[in-house]
């Protein structure tokens, strides 16, 4: 039972990383109907920016905040300069573009920072000790990652639900033509969406590096698959679904792998296939996902 509780918390922590990247994917999907395959590589790229900042003497959390801001600006710039020219074109064109970005950013990370192993973060951002809760030892790092990502999610929720800008962002995603008629600059809303997604993805990248050092140019590839699985599980249209899906997937994978120690099936090697199995099952059984909206419309 104790082990179970510990593994659930650990699963929630890794799940919150999948959830944040899934949220980034959902934000762009909602506004453009396109899955951004470059989201993971973008996160890796920005994590290397954080490494460079720390390497130049910036403190870890300062670098963290700066990186999130840089990622936001970078996301906006990417949309304006690269995505915008194909905006409104066939979906396949935009998808190919994001795959191109995936290759480009991956290549750039490898070229600029070389494919060598780096220790990052230099010091653990969270205490390595554990916290004893009624006999259950909970890692403070797990709690820290979970806490920061959930805090981020709450902030985003407040932005989208309670501000005029958030309303405009939602409107632009739901009905671009009607949004323009009420004066919403839809093009800029799309760019802001990319900026937000890149900023959220940056957090996922930073915490991936923190949770499983060292920093590696390919670290986000498996995470991207888990994020896809989380987004599909929650419903690609639903931000809350992405969070729920990410956390559920994190716990599921962690429990499967943990209890395998008794079965010796080496399921650890099957993490990615399990994620694919989740995607496949959801698409077959409930394509809208757990929280995908069934839009009610009277004609």
């Amino acid at each position, binding site marked *: 039972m104790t082990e179970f509780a510990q593994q659930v918390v650990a699963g929630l922590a890794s799940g919150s990383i999948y959830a944040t990247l899934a949220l980034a994917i959902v934000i762009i999907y909602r506004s453009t109907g396109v899955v951004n395959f470059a989201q993971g590589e973008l996160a890796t790229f920005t994590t290397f920016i954080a490494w460079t900042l720390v390497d130049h003497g910036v403190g870890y959390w300062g670098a963290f905040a700066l990186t999130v801001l840089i990622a936001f600006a970078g996301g906006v710039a990417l949309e304006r300069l690269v995505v915008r020219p194909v905006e409104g074109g066939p979906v396949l064109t935009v998808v190919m573009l994001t795959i191109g970005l995936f290759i480009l950013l991956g290549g750039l990370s490898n070229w600029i920072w070389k494919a060598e192993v780096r220790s990052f973060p230099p010091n653990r951002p969270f205490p390595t000790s554990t916290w004893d809760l009624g006999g259950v030892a909970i890692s403070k790092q797990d709690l820290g990652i979970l806490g920061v990502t959930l805090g981020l999610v709450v902030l985003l929720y407040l932005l989208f639900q309670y501000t*005029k800008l958030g*309303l*405009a962002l*939602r*409107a632009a995603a*739901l*009905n671009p*033509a*009607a*949004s*323009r*008629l*009420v*004066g*919403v*600059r*839809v093009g800029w809303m799309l760019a802001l969406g990319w900026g937000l997604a890149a900023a959220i993805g940056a957090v996922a990248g930073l915490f991936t590096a923190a949770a499983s050092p060292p920093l590696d140019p390919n670290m986000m590839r498996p995470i991207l698959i888990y994020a896809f699985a989380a987004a599909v599980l929650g419903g690609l249209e639903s931000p809350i679904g992405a969070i729920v899906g990410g956390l559920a997937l994190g716990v599921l994978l962690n429990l499967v792998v943990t209890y395998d120690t008794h079965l010796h099936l080496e399921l650890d090697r099957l993490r990615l296939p399990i994620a694919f199995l989740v995607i496949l099952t959801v698409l077959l059984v409930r394509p809208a996902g757990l929280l995908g*909206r069934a*839009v*009610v*419309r*009277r*004609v």
Partner: protein
Amino acid sequence: MRLLELDGVDARYGPVQVLHGVSLEVGEGEVVAVLGGNGAGKTTTLRAISGLVAQSGEIRLGGERIGGSAPERVARLGIAHVPEGRGIFGELSVRDNLRLGAYLRRNGFAAGYERVRGYFPWLEERRDQQAGTLSGGEQQMLALARALMARPRLLLLDEPSLGLAPSIVRELFRIVGELNEKEGLAVLVVEQNAKLALRSSSRAYVLEAGRVALEGPSGELAENESVRKAYLGY
């Protein structure tokens, strides 16, 4: 005093030219109707004004050239367009739809909402309802209410009667008439229901194949032989 002027406006969707030199005007505080059959270019005329379709020719609002402006800029200049099919945000609440109507007005929600509620008292109890679950008539009323939230100088109404019961259509046009009389709101309305359109407007244009075929005071057009035969059915 002219509020809106179109001078020789052409518009096309890709290779298909839909408007051929359309000229029309709407004065301050005037209700003007555009009649015509399917495909005559009525909706395209409104879309050209709003910047939703590429056009050439002159479009002026209060003397200022707005032709070629993006829809969000046209909205900023004071034109509220209620598109065909209403263009409401079905997934959002009634209140959020109205908030979007006031998007361009700084802190303009409270005052605007008071005014709009005077015309549509039922909005208050439905404010948290998902707009897509309203009846067709309510959705059309909401679309109109949302347009009013922007405090426009000119209201563009595209086929407001489409698919609605006659009693709801009458109510809708009664409200538009009241807005015009009480507040001097200028309206350009495109309508298949010619009888209703002519009764509710002071002047009208008849479009045929993308050209203005006839224009004049609505009362005169209603007496016109060809208009009666083609659009009024008697």
